[in-house]
């Protein structure tokens, strides 16, 4: 298992640095580095006479490669613990191997519900919510504001898309909301209009969509082209909260709401500082993926500093005792609703206005009032 070499505390970080998910890998790596430097300045990267060292490995977005990376980090580099994990597929594999190899693994992004439902006690998920839980705050808003009779669900047929729409679907059924349209699509399409035309004829009160970055903007742009009015369009995080969404969709992004795990102007301490600093340092805006990595680095440093010894079990129990405030809110690893070592996520509902993402729910932390129902295209 995870032994430790004498002069360094090695932390293996597995991210997609090449391949189609590399954009997020890059953002998360940058954020790790940024947090590391801050911690270093505070002297929190040295434990006794040992320096924390981050060892990045590229998983290329492929789970067999993720497996190789895990094997290498644990068996060859003898890391003290693992972190990273972007896609659910890779995270699944890293988590499984980490558990088998008795090495603590702190997940950054991978959000498939199943990962923390296996009872794996070496696997921790702090900054990422289980996919089906992204909608926490939104259900509150649904009850109090939206009160839809009928909803339509569209989602990309990926793990994240299927898991999160499944959660939403079950919740709808529980509350007796009528699902009039429910369809998956393959991401990367040029033309969503046939699906949208079909959807329009079912006339839902509200649309709930889970999409990859650019599909999100393709969908809202084409709704605008179709003059397709709906009282509320809600994205499920992911594509709908990223800066690129607005850059590509432009005016079509107005009034699109979304669930979110994080926004720069959320009231947690350090959030907006992180956002500004990142933008300055790397020349572009980070989104919640970056925040996840940044916060995770803080959790790691905290746990390592508290650990009684730097053995695998020592770090494991230090992680278990985590209670820390981060830019993503408080993080604790608890067992609940079938989950193991899963932080209870903070979720928000955000809405685009003029290219700005405003928090509209929960009301305690809102940065702007919600707009509901949204104006018709013809009236904008």
């Amino acid at each position, binding site marked *: 298992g995870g032994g430790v070499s004498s002069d360094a505390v090695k932390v293996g970080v597995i991210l997609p640095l090449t391949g*189609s998910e590399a*954009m997020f890998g890059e953002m998360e790596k940058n954020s790790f580095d940024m947090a590391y430097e801050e911690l270093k300045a505070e002297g929190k990267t040295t434990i006794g006479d040992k320096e924390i060292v981050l060892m990045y490995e590229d998983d290329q977005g492929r789970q067999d490669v993720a497996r190789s990376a895990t094997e290498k980090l644990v068996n060859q580099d003898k890391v003290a613990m693992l972190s990273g994990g972007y896609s659910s597929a890779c995270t699944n594999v890293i988590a499984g191997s980490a558990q088998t190899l008795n090495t603590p693994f702190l997940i950054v992004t991978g959000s498939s519900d199943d990962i923390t439902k296996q009872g794996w006690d070496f696997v921790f998920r702090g900054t990422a919510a289980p996919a089906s839980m992204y909608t926490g705050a939104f259900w509150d808003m649904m009850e109090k504001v939206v009160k839809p009779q009928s909803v339509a669900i569209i989602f990309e047929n990926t793990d994240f898309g299927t898991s999160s729409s499944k959660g939403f679907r079950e919740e709808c059924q529980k509350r007796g909301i009528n699902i009039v349209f429910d369809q998956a699509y393959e991401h990367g399409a040029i033309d969503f209009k046939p699906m949208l035309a079909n959807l329009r004829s079912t006339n839902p009160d509200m649309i709930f969509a889970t999409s990859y970055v650019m599909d999100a903007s*393709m969908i809202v742009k084409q709704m605008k082209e179709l003059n397709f009015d709906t009282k509320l369009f809600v994205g499920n995080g992911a594509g709908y909260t990223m800066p690129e969404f607005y850059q590509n969709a432009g005016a079509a992004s107005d009034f699109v709401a979304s669930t979110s795990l994080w926004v720069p102007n959320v009231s947690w301490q350090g959030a907006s500082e992180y956002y500004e600093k990142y933008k300055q340092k790397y020349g572009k805006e980070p989104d919640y993926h970056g925040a996840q990595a940044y916060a995770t680095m803080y959790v790691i440093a905290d746990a390592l500093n508290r650990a009684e010894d730097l053995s695998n079990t020592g770090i494991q129990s230090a992680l278990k005792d985590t209670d820390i405030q981060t830019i993503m809110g408080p993080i604790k690893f608890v067992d609940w609703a079938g989950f193991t070592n899963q932080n209870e996520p903070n979720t928000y509902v955000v809405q685009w206005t003029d290219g700005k993402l405003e928090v509209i729910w929960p009301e305690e932390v809102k940065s702007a009032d919600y707009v509901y129902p949204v104006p018709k295209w013809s009236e904008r």
Partner: protein
Amino acid sequence: MEDAWIKFGQTVICGILLGGMYSLIAIGMTLIMGVMKIVNLAHGALVMVGMYVVYICATNYGIDPYIGMFIAMPVLFFLGCLIQKYMINRLVEVDSILPENQVLLTVGIMLVLTEGIRLFFKSDYRSVVTSYSSDTLYIGAMSISVPLVIGFIIAMAFTFLLHMFLTKSDLGKSIRATAQDRDAAIFMGVNSSKITMITFGLGAALAAAGGSLLLPLFYLFPDVGHLFTAKSFIITILGGLGSTWGAAIGGLVIGLSESLGATYISMGYKDVVGLVMFILVLLFLPGGIRSLVKR
């Protein structure tokens, strides 16, 4: 009833316009694979590089994508020529057990192009938003995207030009001749290495044109090419190797099948419908659409 017809009309319009887009991207492939018989897995990557050229023109110099196309095309022509001259031509000249070893080379080229671009531009999603990106025409309740219509028209124009080029000009004929019998073409005084070089260059330039026209309504990242490579293959084969109009019609067939599939089956199955259509055509028309149109 009324509603159902609108839905159908919208679906068909979308299918045809989408098909036009597919044809546009497949047209360079028609030249490289259909005529030259080089299975080029780097095709999508060439489309992608072309898009980046247009992107740079648009963001750094404020050049409209439709004009940027005329910069991207020569750049990609040049790139294509280099690839053919220094890499693929080497393989054409040796006798290998499976001629598909070219495939492997193009896989390598694809990796190099994709990752090379990533090194420079990172993996960020980029897009060029123009004033007309979302322009829409309406026929009753049916909407028609203007950039798609432009793309469609240009696709058909390119198909026509390519067809004329291949059948009417000596250079075009030399291209076909070289593909069919390299040595015999040399006997006729054709500089076949130069011809293959130009052909690949032209194919790459057409790929760039496809990318340029797509950019105003789509988006860009280093792996965007993967979305198009397999589709271009399928369209080229569907059309019948070497047939320009066949490929154009093939694009429309795939576009329509996907669109109808998306509306009447499910968006998740739209690609399945396109692929099944492809296989059906091949089984019942073994030479592709070409056996109907005949050059």
